[in-house]
């Protein structure tokens, strides 16, 4: 096994996923299979090859430092499940 059930639980917790026991079993198996596949890729000789961080061979996409209109508070908050005082409203995060 490349990955343990405890590690899957840990990653799920980081991703704020509440998984059922059965899902944990299934995902552990699937992730193990993925890691097996990556292990196979490791067999390739990649000496002297720069790690590929992007699929498109492109670099330096810039914008100039010029202000553009923002969308406005109403629009910004239009998808918010809760809002108040022009802000997104969330469960209190400090005591």
């Amino acid at each position, binding site marked *: 096994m490349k990955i343990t059930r405890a590690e899957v639980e*840990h990653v799920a*917790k*980081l991703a*704020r996923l509440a998984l059922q026991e059965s899902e944990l079993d299934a995902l552990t198996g699937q992730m193990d299979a993925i890691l097996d596949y990556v292990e196979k890729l490791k067999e390739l000789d990649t000496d002297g090859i720069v790690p590929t*961080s*992007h*699929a*498109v061979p*492109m*670099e*330096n*996409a*810039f*914008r*100039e*430092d*010029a*202000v*553009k209109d*923002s*969308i*406005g*508070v109403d629009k*910004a*908050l239009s*998808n918010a499940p*809760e809002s*108040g*005082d*022009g*802000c*997104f*409203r*969330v*469960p*209190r*995060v*400090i005591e």
Partner: protein
Amino acid sequence: MGSSKYEVVIGLEVHVQLTTQTKIFCGCSTRFGSAPNSQTCPVCLGLPGALPVLNRKVVEYAIRTGLATHCAIAPRSVFARKNYFYPDLPKGYQISQFELPICEHGHLEIETEDGGPKTIGITRIHMEEDAGKLLHGEGPEAGSSSFVDLNRACTPLLEIVSEPDMRSSDEAIAYLKKLHQIVMYLGVCDGNLEEGSFRCDANVSIRPWGQKEFGTRAELKNINSFRFIKQAIDYEVERQADILDDGGKVVQETRLFDSVTGMTRSMRGKEEAHDYRYFPDPDLVPLVVSPEWVEQVRQELPELPEAKVARFIREFGIPRYDAEVLSADRAMAEYYDATVARHGNGKLCANWVMGEVQRRLNEDGVAISDSPVTPELLAALLGRIDDNTISGKIAKTVFEEMWRSGDAPDKIIEEKGLKQVTDTGAIEQIIDEVIAANLDQVEEYRGGKDKVFGFFVGQVMKASKGKANPAAVNEMLKKKLQG
């Protein structure tokens, strides 16, 4: 207490907010103090499908800062996602740099308590976006809510990470002040600590003297003044020393500084904070910085504080102390430079800029760039001391008037009749009158009481309304009194 048994080890992470007009990945304004969420768009709100595009100026400022701190500028660097959940982080990740930051291997020189120079290593400088702001406890139902303002989200930051090279809170402050001065000189940061433009996290650990391995460190957060940073570090050192003295172990954790109690306290509830699962951000293509670009930025670097201090000492012949005071702030240094360029006497100009000018600026809370007395006007005033039109004392009166009216010194001297009396006949007449009115004191002086001489000088200057040339007064008084 017991910290003297241990060596203190400090490394600092400074977040510098850049002075660009717009955010790092979108065109929203970075202006401080606007209505909540009024400076937002799909990119900085983290809406699905929005595409971040890098602000070229942010890269330029990063290169500038890297060069000024003797860093190597990476020819290729990559943005990465730092994943964690917090309500002030709309995307669920912060765009930062991880494996390939734009600057590495720099250093700064500081002065230590014993006056010697010390080099503090800079591990790396990387670009990243800021998070939004959380507001707590407003309104009637606020008890169970926090409010999120995303105006600050996506504001460009440089994170400047030092090596764990500092050995006392004083060294840490010296490093921070140096760095603060440099980013302000470079014009990349407004340096406002209260508004959070220059923020510091301190990694603090202690170890028994002679031990090679570092002790377990605590990360201190939330400190927004130099004084508080020193307080927080000193408190933390004592806390850790007490733990070790009692045979305990320091726990690696993040601690918040409370400026009211002067203490640090453990920050609970951010479990797994170290598991950020960084990976290259597919939305942002790699950044390639050519040697030509680096060279261009290098050419445009302003003269930095250390170089200014050296030049002021060398060219204007002023003491190191003066040179350092005058170079502390770039605008002040430029004001002084411009004054000397027109007047020539480095020491006299230094005295006036550090003295009268600085005093008036402080009194009125005015920035030197807005001084009503410009370098041109100040140099003109000092020129009138040189050519004996006025004495140094009257010059202060003229300066006051210049400050109030913004007028040129010659106009004020003329209108107020402040021109110095160098006419020996006129001075002689005043002296005769003063002597005639104070015969007792004349006797005292002639009886050997030299101190009375000062009294006579004072009386003559007073009678002339300060306009008599002091050198002439001294000379003639001496003659007359000796009879």
